[in-house]
């Protein structure tokens, strides 16, 4: 059998055709613009939950009994899980930026001694408050935790320290989203949700529509190769994805006053991987379904876990392990971290790399399955 390499010409023929069809199908095009706007309005509310075992780093300069019992109390509360001990402020900062920890507990030098002297030493709790729902309960629990822990140790003449305003001065430092405003978290997240929903759906219909309308027979009778057809169907919708991103960014900035700290150009670049991953999933569904209805059902089958297990609806760290495992495979999970990282934390390329490669890997797998599944005959 002769080799038939990829033909840019035939690929372009597909792109042009899809563009014309997209332009003619006003209803679908309107939906693709309307859905993001509708969702932005609908998701004005937050969904609450009580995540525990949040990864926490400890930066302690004190070895005294009081600092130890304080850390022990935090650990016992189930809200905090100590994952690392760091030695410098810079190190702690890096962990927070990378999203590896949710909290840093910072205990200053001579904490125990100052406490015994009644000087009310400061304990600093730095929180990644990007997602206020994730940190909210842990933060509200910590004040009580500290005083009850201290109570046990303050005996004899130290008892007097129990009086108000308490033995320790707890300072809370909410980073990235200092006011803990939920919509700062929701709006960038919505970008990923909208893209997942529309991109998967639109391409899920792409191949089944050709089959249902009978145009597939003609397409197969031409010398077109599967990869040319797939790519030709993907490229026009990448543009649609970018229109959606722009709409949401504008709404975030103008309507919801979300502070945009990072570089939007980086976001646009990374979004290409995410959009292509979702389009490839759609194409794969399109080759599996017999008709457009089945394709849409499969798109929903993909969309629901994405919505629920990615950390959009519920804080990722609040989910059981199995749910986190599923969530880690989904592209939306990683894209949410990237979007929030870039927009709210000002992450650069290096910071988001750990979330970028799973996205790219997912895209490669989905595209391969799609091309393999696309059959060149009507059998």
């Amino acid at each position: 059998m002769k080799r038939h390499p990829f033909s840019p010409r035939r690929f372009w023929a597909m792109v042009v055709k899809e563009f014309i069809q997209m332009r003619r199908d006003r209803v679908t095009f309107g939906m693709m613009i309307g859905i993001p706007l509708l969702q932005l309005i609908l998701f004005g509310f937050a969904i609450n939950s009580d995540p525990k075992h949040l990864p926490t780093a400890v930066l302690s300069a004190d070895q005294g009994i009081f600092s130890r019992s304080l850390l022990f109390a935090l650990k016992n509360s189930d809200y905090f899980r100590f994952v690392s001990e760091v030695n410098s402020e810079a190190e702690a900062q890096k962990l927070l930026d990378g999203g590896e920890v949710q909290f840093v507990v910072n205990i200053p030098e001579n904490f125990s001694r100052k406490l015994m002297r009644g000087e009310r030493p400061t304990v600093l709790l730095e929180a990644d408050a990007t997602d206020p729902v994730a940190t909210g309960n842990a933060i509200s629990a910590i004040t009580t935790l500290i005083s009850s822990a201290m109570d046990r140790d303050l005996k004899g003449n130290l008892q007097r320290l129990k009086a108000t305003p308490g033995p320790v001065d707890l300072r809370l430092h909410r980073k990235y989203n200092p006011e803990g405003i939920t919509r700062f978290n929701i709006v960038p997240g919505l970008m990923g949700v909208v893209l997942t929903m529309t991109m998967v759906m639109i391409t899920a219909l792409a191949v089944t529509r050709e089959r249902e309308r009978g145009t597939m027979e003609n397409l197969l009778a031409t010398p077109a190769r599967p990869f040319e057809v797939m790519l030709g169907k993907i490229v026009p919708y990448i543009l649609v994805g970018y229109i959606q991103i722009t709409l949401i960014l504008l709404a975030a900035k103008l309507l919801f006053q979300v502070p945009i700290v990072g570089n939007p150009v980086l976001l646009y670049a990374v979004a290409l991987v995410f959009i292509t991953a979702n389009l490839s999933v759609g194409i794969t569904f399109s080759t599996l379904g017999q008709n457009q209805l089945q394709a849409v059902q499969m798109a929903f089958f993909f969309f629901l876990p994405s919505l629920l297990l990615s950390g959009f609806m519920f804080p990722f760290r609040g989910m059981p392990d199995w749910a986190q495992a599923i969530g880690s495979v989904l592209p939306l999970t990683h894209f949410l971290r990237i979007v929030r990282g870039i927009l709210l934390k000002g992450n650069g390329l290096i910071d988001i790399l750990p979330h970028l490669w799973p996205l790219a890997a997912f895209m490669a797998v989905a595209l391969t399955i799609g091309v393999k599944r696309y059959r060149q005959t009507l059998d």
Partner: protein
Amino acid sequence: MRFAAVESTDPEFIIDVEGVTKRFGDRTVVNQISMQVRRGEIYGFLGPNGSGKTTFIRMLCGLLTPDAGQGRVLNYNILTESAEIKKHVGYMTQRFSYYEDLSIAENLDFVARMYGVPNRREAVDKSLERLGLTERRRQLAGQLSGGWKQRLALAACLIHEPKLLLLDEPTAGVDPKARRDFWEEIHSLAARGLTVLITTHYMDEAERCHRLAYIAYGSLLTHGAVADVVRAAGLTTWAVTGDNLYPLAEKLRGLPGIDEVVAFGNTLHISGRNAAQLQASITPFMGGAYRWEPIASGLEDVFISLMETAKDNFA
């Protein structure tokens, strides 16, 4: 060994396949069909609905994989070289399969790009002009009537100058004038060396083919030039003319030697393969108000008789 036969085929045959078989589940839809079509020939492919014509054509151009059989189309192996075959075949599907939400010109342009037609714009313009579609170029294909859709489909499958045309019921639902124009076009293309395989249900169209084949229930029942097919059927046909033929037809049906009784206006055609038996059966009815005369059997008489026999054998 299996391929030896294929290698030795005469390149004069544009289609040269043997034993082509297709099964869907445990139903054999195309059963051991062999076919040879020469360059420049218009080859008619006839058979009742569901007899496997479309399935057979799809196997010729690589849209379906045969379960058995082998052969060559345009001297390319149908099993391994369908990508090459596709480049040189123009396939007009039974159901209109161009994009209804694209205009005529956009559809042609898409097809031209797909086949890498040189001087694309020119080719599209020329093809629009030749088929008289120039004024309608911006009209959406979905808004066209049957006849215009058929013209568009023909223009589209000719744009890459194929060497073989596979036309699947191209004239179904098209008015007589448009059908005649269509056949003029087909004949002029064939005169220039294009080979055409065409399926149809119209007898007048069948008679315009150089040669034809008839299939029923997936099996090839007869093939050859029109006259040969009629002769090979060995059919005797009588025509009865007169008023009120219906009661007569009822009485004749089922008598020994009478295979079919078909009404054509004020005439009945009575055919059978056993001339003596037929004669014996009709003799008692001769005379009276009816006028009896033996006539040459037509293609339709032959096909109906073939189908009746096939029903007894296969169904």
